[in-house]
C-alpha cells in the first residue's frame, strides 16, 4: 500500500458517517420553485437532478486520484425526502443509537424541523405507497409476514456493464437526440411520453457532465495554489480526466475508473437506489485499457494497483442512506452491497475470462480490507484452478471476502429467465447474491417473505398468535389433519395467499415508481431504455424480473420435518400436544423439546428425510411465484437470501416444532438452522445442493470456518475442491467467515480492541462491533463447522 493510499484509507475508516441535509435542501428548494407544476414528471425529476449536480458542494480530497463524493465530503450521507422523509425522532435515534450511528448536527436538525419536514409531510412517495395498501396487506406487513423494500428505497439492483467504457454521455445523448428526431406523433400514441423521457435524459446527461467539469475547475484552481510540484501535476491530470469523462469515452485506465465513478454518483444521487449499483465485472471492463497501457509503458502494475485502491476508498466513503421509521434496537448497516465481480467467462464465446487484473483485484481486496465495496469471484469450470485457489487465500484472511459464485449455474439461471446467452455470460451476481444481466436489467428485489411466519399461521388456522388477528386464510385446525399431506396443503394455501397479496400490491408500487419517480439517469445507462423510450422504472430495461426473497428455508424445513416425523410417521406425540408446547414456548415440555432438538432429522446434515422437506418448501414457493407477470413486462422470480431480516423475522415468530424457541433468529439464506448441522461442511453442501439452484435467481449459503483448518497449502487445495464439488452439484454461491467464536466473544466484550474486525454477515461484510448485539450473538452461534 502506498503512503497515499494508506492515508486515504485511514481517513475513510476514521471519519464518522454523518447526515448531510444538502441534497434534501436542494430538492426542497427545487420543488418549492413552482417548476414541477409546469413540466412533465420525467423532466421534473431531471431538473431536480440538474439543480443538485450544478449546485452541490464538491471537494477534492488531499492526495486522491479518483475524485468526487456523493455528499459535500467523505462520509457525508445525503437523504431523499421526496421518497421518504426522516422525522425528528428518526434523526434523534440515528444520532444516539449505539450501532450504525450517524452524526446529526444541530444545524441539520434545525433545517429538517423548519424546512424539510414541513414541506414534505404528506407528499412523499412512501406516504403514497402506504395509502395504496389495503387492510389485509397492512395486517400481514405488521405481523411480519413480509417486508417491502420500495416503501422507502427506489428499486435498484442494477449493475453497470461495459458500455460506459466505449461511449461517453455525449454519445448516449446523441442516440437520444436521434430517437427524439424520429418520434412519430401520428402513429405512435406514446410519442409524448417518449419525448418527455428523452428530454429528461438529455438534461441529466448534461448535468452529470457539468458535475465532472466543476471538479476539473476545482482541480485547476487547487493546482494553482499547490506548492508540491508532484501534486500539482496530479491535479492538472485530474482536471484533464474530469474534462474528458464522463462526457466522452475514457482513453485510459485512470479515466475508465473515474468514468465509472461519475456514473455511480449520478445514479445514486438521482434516487436512493441500492448502492449495489457497481461496476460489475471490473477485471473485464478495465483489461483492454490495462493491456494497452502496460504494453505502451504508460502504466505500471503498481500504478494500476494504486488507482484501484483509490477507487476502492471512494466506495467506502459513501455510507448507505439510513432508513426512516427506525427504532432504537434496529441496527442498520453502513454497507450497501456494492459487489465487484472478478473472473467468469467471456460473453461472446464462453471461454475463460480470468486475466492478470482478476488476480490484481484480489490483491487489492486483500490489502484494502474495507467493507465497501465487497468483492466476489465468479468461478467457472473453464477458469484455471489457481484462480479459485488465490481467492481462497484471501478468504483465509478471514474478513469475509471474496464470496464465491458459480458462473456456470448463474448462466443457467439467466437462460432460464429468458436472457440471451451473451447477456447471461456478461452478467453475474449483483448486490448480495441475486443474478442480473449487467447493464440491461431492472432487477427489482421487492421484499422478504417470512416462511417461518407462514408456518406459524398454518399451525394457528391463519390467526397471528401475537395479535389474535386473522392475518391469513382459515386453512383448518391442524388437530383435525389426518395426514401430513393435509398439513402441506394448508401451508401451500397460506403461502399462495401471501404471495398473491404481495404481488397485487407490489404491482401498485411498481406503477407508483413508474408514474411519480422515473429515473432518467439510470435509464440513460441501462439498455434498452433509450431504444424503447421507456423509463427504467417502467419496463425500459431489456430484462425486468421482480424478486420476492424466500427466508428461513432451513428453520421451516426442520419444523416441517418434526411435524412429519413425530406427528404423522412415528406418532411420538399428538398435534394437540405439539401446539400446546409451541404456545407455551415449551414451558413444561422439556422432554418433547429435547426430542425435537436432539432426536429429529435436521436439514444441513445430508439427511434425506429432512432435506426433502427443504426441497418441498422450495418447490412450493417456486410453483406459486415463479413466472407470474409484473407490470414492467417481466416476471416474478424466486431467490433465497435474507440480508439480516432473518433476525427481525425470527423476532415475530413463536416457538417452532424444530425446538427453536420464540423470538430466536430464523436460519439465513439456505444455510441450516444454527447449531443443527453436526456432520461437517460436506454434509451442509450436499443438503444445500438438494434444491434446484438453476431455477432461482440466487441462493445464499453461509459457512463459518475455524482458521485451524486452513493452515497449509494442502488445506486450501481441499477447500477449493470442496467448493468445486458444491458447484458441480449445482450450488450458486458460498461465503466463508474464517474466525474463531472466541475471537468474536472477545470482540463483543471489548469492542474498542476490535474496531477493524470484519465479518461476513449475509451477502455483505460489516464491522463486527458495529452490528447489534442480537446479530453479534447470531454470528457467534452460527455453527462453527466441526472439521477434523
Amino acid at each position, binding site marked *: 500500500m502506498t503512503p497515499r493510499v494508506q492515508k486515504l484509507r485511514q481517513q475513510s475508516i476514521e471519519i464518522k458517517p454523518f447526515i448531510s441535509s444538502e441534497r434534501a435542501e436542494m430538492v426542497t428548494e427545487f420543488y418549492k420553485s413552482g417548476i414541477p407544476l409546469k413540466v412533465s414528471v420525467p423532466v421534473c425529476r431531471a431538473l431536480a437532478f440538474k439543480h443538485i449536480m450544478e449546485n452541490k458542494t464538491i471537494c477534492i480530497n488531499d492526495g486522491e486520484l479518483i475524485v468526487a463524493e456523493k455528499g459535500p465530503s467523505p462520509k457525508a450521507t445525503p437523504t431523499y425526502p421526496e421518497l421518504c422523509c426522516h422525522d425528528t425522532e428518526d434523526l434523534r435515534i440515528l444520532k444516539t443509537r449505539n450501532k450504525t450511528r450517524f452524526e446529526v448536527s444541530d444545524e441539520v436538525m434545525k433545517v429538517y424541523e423548519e424546512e424539510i419536514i414541513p414541506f414534505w409531510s404528506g407528499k412523499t412517495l412512501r406516504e403514497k405507497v402506504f395509502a395504496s395498501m389495503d387492510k389485509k396487506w397492512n395486517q400481514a406487513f405488521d405481523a411480519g409476514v413480509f417486508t417491502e423494500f420500495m416503501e422507502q428505497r427506489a428499486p435498484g439492483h442494477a449493475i453497470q456493464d461495459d458500455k460506459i467504457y466505449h461511449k461517453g454521455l455525449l454519445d448516449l445523448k446523441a442516440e437520444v437526440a436521434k430517437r427524439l428526431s424520429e418520434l412519430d406523433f401520428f402513429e405512435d400514441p406514446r410519442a409524448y411520453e417518449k419525448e418527455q423521457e428523452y428530454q429528461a435524459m438529455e438534461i441529466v446527461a448534461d448535468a452529470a457532465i457539468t458535475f465532472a467539469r466543476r471538479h476539473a475547475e476545482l482541480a485547476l484552481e487547487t493546482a494553482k495554489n499547490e506548492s508540491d510540484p508532484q501534486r500539482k501535476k496530479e491535479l492538472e491530470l485530474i482536471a484533464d480526466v474530469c474534462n474528458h469523462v464522463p462526457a466522452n469515452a475514457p482513453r485510459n485506465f485512470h479515466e475508465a475508473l473515474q468514468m465509472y465513478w461519475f456514473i455511480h454518483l449520478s445514479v445514486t444521487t438521482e434516487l436512493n437506489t441500492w448502492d449495489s449499483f457497481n461496476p460489475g465485472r471490473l477485471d473485464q471492463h478495465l483489461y483492454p485499457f490495462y493491456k494497452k497501457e502496460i504494453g505502451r509503458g504508460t502504466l505500471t502494475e503498481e500504478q494500476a494497483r494504486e488507482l484501484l485502491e483509490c477507487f476502492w476508498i471512494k466506495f467506502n466513503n459513501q455510507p448507505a442512506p439510513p432508513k426512516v421509521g427506525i427504532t432504537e434496537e434496529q441496527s442498520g448497516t453502513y454497507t450497501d452491497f456494492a459487489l465487484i465481480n472478478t473472473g467468469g467467462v467471456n460473453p461472446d464465446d464462453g471461454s475463460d475470462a480470468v486475466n492478470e487484473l482478476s488476480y490484481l483485484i484480489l490483491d487489492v481486496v486483500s490489502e484494502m480490507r474495507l467493507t465497501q465495496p465487497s468483492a466476489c469471484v465468479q468461478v467457472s469450470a473453464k477458469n484455471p484452478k489457481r484462480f479459485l485457489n488465490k481467492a481462497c487465500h484471501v478468504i483465509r484472511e478471514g474478513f469475509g471476502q471474496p464470496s464465491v459464485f458459480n458462473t456456470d449455474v448463474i448462466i443457467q439461471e439467466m437462460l432460464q429467465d429468458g436472457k440471451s446467452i451473451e447477456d447471461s455470460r456478461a452478467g453475474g451476481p449483483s448486490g448480495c447474491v441475486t443474478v442480473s444481466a449487467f447493464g440491461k436489467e431492472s432487477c427489482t428485489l421487492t421484499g422478504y417473505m417470512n416462511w417461518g411466519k407462514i408456518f406459524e399461521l398454518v399451525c394457528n388456522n391463519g390467526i397471528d398468535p401475537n395479535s389474535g388477528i386473522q392475518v391469513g386464510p382459515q386453512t383448518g385446525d391442524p388437530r383435525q389433519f389426518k395426514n401430513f399431506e393435509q398439513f402441506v396443503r394448508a401451508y401451500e394455501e397460506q403461502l399462495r395467499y401471501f404471495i398473491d397479496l404481495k404481488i397485487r400490491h407490489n404491482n401498485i408500487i411498481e406503477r407508483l415508481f413508474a408514474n411519480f419517480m422515473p429515473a432518467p439517469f439510470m435509464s440513460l445507462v441501462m439498455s434498452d431504455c433509450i431504444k424503447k423510450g421507456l423509463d427504467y422504472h417502467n419496463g425500459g430495461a431489456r430484462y425486468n424480473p421482480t424478486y420476492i426473497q424466500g427466508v428461513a428455508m432451513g428453520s421451516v424445513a426442520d419444523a416441517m420435518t418434526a411435524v412429519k416425523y413425530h406427528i404423522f410417521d412415528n406418532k411420538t406425540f399428538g398435534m394437540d400436544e405439539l401446539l400446546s408446547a409451541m404456545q407455551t414456548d415449551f414451558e413444561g415440555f422439556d422432554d418433547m423439546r429435547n426430542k425435537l432438538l436432539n432426536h429429529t432429522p435436521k436439514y444441513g446434515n445430508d439427511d434425506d428425510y429432512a432435506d426433502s422437506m427443504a426441497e418441498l418448501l422450495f418447490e412450493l414457493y417456486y410453483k406459486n411465484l415463479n413466472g407470474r407477470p409484473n407490470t414492467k413486462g417481466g416476471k416474478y422470480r424466486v431467490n433465497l437470501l435474507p440480508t439480516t431480516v432473518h433476525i427481525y423475522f425470527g423476532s415475530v415468530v413463536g416457538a417452532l416444532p424444530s425446538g427453536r424457541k420464540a423470538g430466536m433468529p430464523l436460519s439465513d439464506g439456505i444455510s441450516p438452522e444454527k447449531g443443527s448441522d453436526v456432520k*461437517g461442511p*460436506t*454434509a451442509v453442501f450436499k443438503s444445500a445442493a438438494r434444491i434446484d439452484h438453476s431455477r432461482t435467481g440466487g441462493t445464499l449459503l453461509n459457512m463459518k470456518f475455524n482458521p485451524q483448518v486452513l493452515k*497449509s497449502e494442502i488445506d486450501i487445495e481441499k477447500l477449493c475442491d*470442496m467448493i468445486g464439488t458444491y458447484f*458441480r452439484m449445482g450450488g450458486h454461491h458460498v461465503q466463508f467467515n474464517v474466525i474463531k467464536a472466541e475471537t468474536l466473544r472477545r470482540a463483543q466484550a471489548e469492542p474498542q480492541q476490535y474496531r477493524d474486525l470484519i465479518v461476513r454477515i449475509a451477502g455483505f461484510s460489516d464491522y463486527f462491533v458495529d452490528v447489534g448485539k442480537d446479530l453479534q450473538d447470531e454470528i457467534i452461534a452460527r455453527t462453527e463447522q466441526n472439521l477434523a
Partner: protein
Amino acid sequence: MISHKDLKGVVFDIKRYAIHDGPGIRTTVFLKGCPLSCQWCHNPESILPQPEPAIRFSRCTLCGRCIEVCPENAISKNEDHVRTDFDKCIRCGKCVEVCPASAREIIGKEMSAEEVMAEVRRDILFYDESGGGVTFSGGEPLMQSEFLTAILEKCRNDNIHTAVDTTCYADESLVLEIAEKADLFLCDIKHIDPKKHLQFTGVDNKLILSNIKKLSETAEVIIRIPVIPGFNDDIDNLKATAEWICGLEKPCPVNFLPYNSGGTEKVKRLAHKMRIIVSKRPDDGQLRKSVELYENQFGLKAIIDG
C-alpha cells in the same frame, strides 16, 4: 468372496471432511478398541473395544431425568453432581435419549458394514474431486479385522480409495492380509527407543517396526509421528527415527502430527479411567525445523499434519 453382509463392528465416530488423514477430502471411520495405551492418547474413548457411557459434566443441568429412566438404578444425585455407577450400567442408552442437555452419550455403536458404507458413499463426489477416499482409524482398526476387511472389499468394489491408520501392533500375517485390500497405510512411529515405547504406550515397538518394514515393501505407507513435547520431540529421537526410515527399502514420506490436548478433556467424561499425561502443543517453529531436518538432512518428504 465371502458374503460380509451381516458382519457388524463397533464404530465410535464417522467424520466427514477429514482433511488430515491422507490425500484429498476423506471420511474417517473410527473403529473402537486399541491394544496400546499411550499416555497422551488423543482418543481415549477408543481404547475399550465395547460401547461405553460418557458424561459431559459441564453440560449437566442436574435435572434428574436420567435418574428417573435408568432401569438399573445406576444413577443418583447429590447436591452438585450426578453420579453414575458404571458397574451397574448396562449401556441401554435410555438416559442418553432423555438428557435435554446432550450431556450423556454412549460412545461406540454397533454398525453393519453396509451401514458404514452408506455413510462413506455420501461423499463420493468430494473424494472424486479431490482425490480423497475413506480412512479407517481408531483405536486400532486391525482389532476388528474381519469387519475392516469386509468394508475394504466393499470400497474396492465401489472404487473408493482406502487408507488404514494403524499402530501396526498386530500379527504380521494379518497386517499383510489387510495390505492387499487397502490402498494406503498411515503407520505411527511413536518412539524409536523400545524401552521408552514400552514405558509410554504399554507395548514394545519391535513388532510395530518390523510390520512397518514389511508393509512398506508391498504397500504405500506414510509414517506419522505424533509430536509429543517432552516425550519424543528431542533431536536424538527425531534423528534416530529418520535414520530408521531411511533404512527402509523404500523410504516413506513422513507426517508430523502435533499433540493436542483433546484427550485430557475427553478422558474426564469416561467411566474407564486412565492416566493421560498433559503436554503442550508443539511450537510451530519447532515443527517446521523438524520438517527441514527430515527434508534437508535425510532427503525424506515431510509435512506437518498431513
